[in-house]
Structure formats: C-alpha cells, structure tokens
C-alpha cells in the first residue's frame, strides 16, 4: 500500500516539470531610427548589439537602406525574445540573442549565455520566429514553446486576415 512518502516521491517529478505552454513576444522598430544609431555610434552600436554573424548577414545586401532594414529586423527579434521570456531585468548581452538564417533561408533564433540559461530554466523546447521589414519599419514576432514537445498538429489552412 502506498504511503504518503511514496506518493510525494512519485508526484515530485511532475510537480517540478516545466509547465507546458507558450510565450509570445513582438516588437516593431523604426528603420530610420536604426540608421540614426549607426550614424551616431557607428561600429560601437554594431558590436554591442549584434553578433558577428548578424553583422555579416545584415551587410550581405546592396546599399545602406537594405542593410538598415536587416539590422532593424534583427533588433526587433531580440526585443521580441526579451518580451517573450520576460527578460528586461535579467541583465543579458544583446548578442546572446541571435537571429540566424537557416539552411533554407528562413529566420531562426539562437540563444547563448545567460539568455540561453533563462530559456532553459523556463523549459523552452522550441522557438518560432517571423520577421518583416520595409523601408520605414521592421517587426518580429517570436513564439517559445515550453515543456512537453509540440505534438506537430497539422498546419492551419490560410485564412483571410481581419484588419484590427
């Protein structure tokens, strides 16, 4: 017959398991404001805020305007992750949140250092990210899946988007 200690022992792993769930973050950034940061602070801005690979990826385009858009998209992705993981007080290096280009050219996220530690502590199992940029504005949305592995439900059929 189970005693109280046995019951506690059996329940303890489940009680301490990271809660399954989802976190989301979104951010929008003015592209001219990014251009302004670059004009004021130059390489210091790039070095403090973007990883070496992010800087390379952002510069792999023709013209400053296109580069500014790419930097702005990366900036938005970092801020979106900070919101999703509730990191404003965590004291993390911005380079520890990286927007990467996957082999198929789609955006992905790579977390390092303290940002990775926090994500792991929260039980983040998988990230999804989408970015968009145009001449004046860039934005990014990130979704963190926590806990149990996603069940791989069938993708939603494309539906008309209402204008909010």
């Amino acid at each position, binding site marked *: 017959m189970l005693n109280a200690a046995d019951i506690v022992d059996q329940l303890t792993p489940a009680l301490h398991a990271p809660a399954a769930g989802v976190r989301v973050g979104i951010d929008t950034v003015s592209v001219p404001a990014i251009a302004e940061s670059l004009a004021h602070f130059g390489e210091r801005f790039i070095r403090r805020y973007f990883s070496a690979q992010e800087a390379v990826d952002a510069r792999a385009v023709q013209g400053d305007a296109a580069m500014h858009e790419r930097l702005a998209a990366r*900036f938005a992705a970092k801020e979106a992750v900070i919101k999703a993981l509730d990191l404003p007080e965590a004291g993390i290096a911005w380079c520890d949140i990286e927007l990467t280009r996957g082999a198929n050219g789609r955006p992905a996220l790579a977390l390092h250092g303290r940002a990775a530690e926090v994500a792991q502590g929260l039980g983040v199992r998988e990230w999804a990210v989408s970015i968009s940029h145009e001449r004046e504005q860039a934005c990014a949305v990130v979704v963190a899946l926590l806990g149990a592995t996603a069940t791989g439900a069938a993708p939603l059929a494309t539906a008309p988007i209402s204008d909010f």
Partner: protein
Amino acid sequence: MSDTATRIRTILAQHAKLAKDASALTEDADLYQAGMSSHASVNVMLALEGAFDIEFPDHMLTRSVFSSVGAIRSAVEELTGA
C-alpha cells in the same frame, strides 16, 4: 545639480526622445513613461558609455538601470568609481 546629473540630462535630451523636457524631469521620474522607447534606451546607453568612458557590464543592462535620471546616475557613479 551635480555635474554627472547634468551630463546625463543632456544625453537624455539628445537621445531619449522624451515627450518632456529632460531638464525638468525629477530624479525619480520614469523615463519610459516620459516617452523613452527600448531603442532610444540603447542610444542613451551608448551615449553614456561614450561620454563617461565606461562600459555597462551585462548585469547592468536592465530596464531599471535606465529607468530614471537617479538610476542612471547611480550606475554611472558605480562604474566611474565616483
């Protein structure tokens, strides 16, 4: 007003894009509520580093460190050993 606080207010006026006059802010006034965006706070941080010849360590790159003139002043004084 200390020289440090004055220099901080000058930087805020140049980079924080506040809806209010930086010289009129109290020490404790919330800069984010006064209009500073997360991007503007990055510019403020870079400007402070340049002006005071300091580098904010990762653990000080928090929202609260840049939340008010007083909070910034404390951080700058800690980093300059003032």
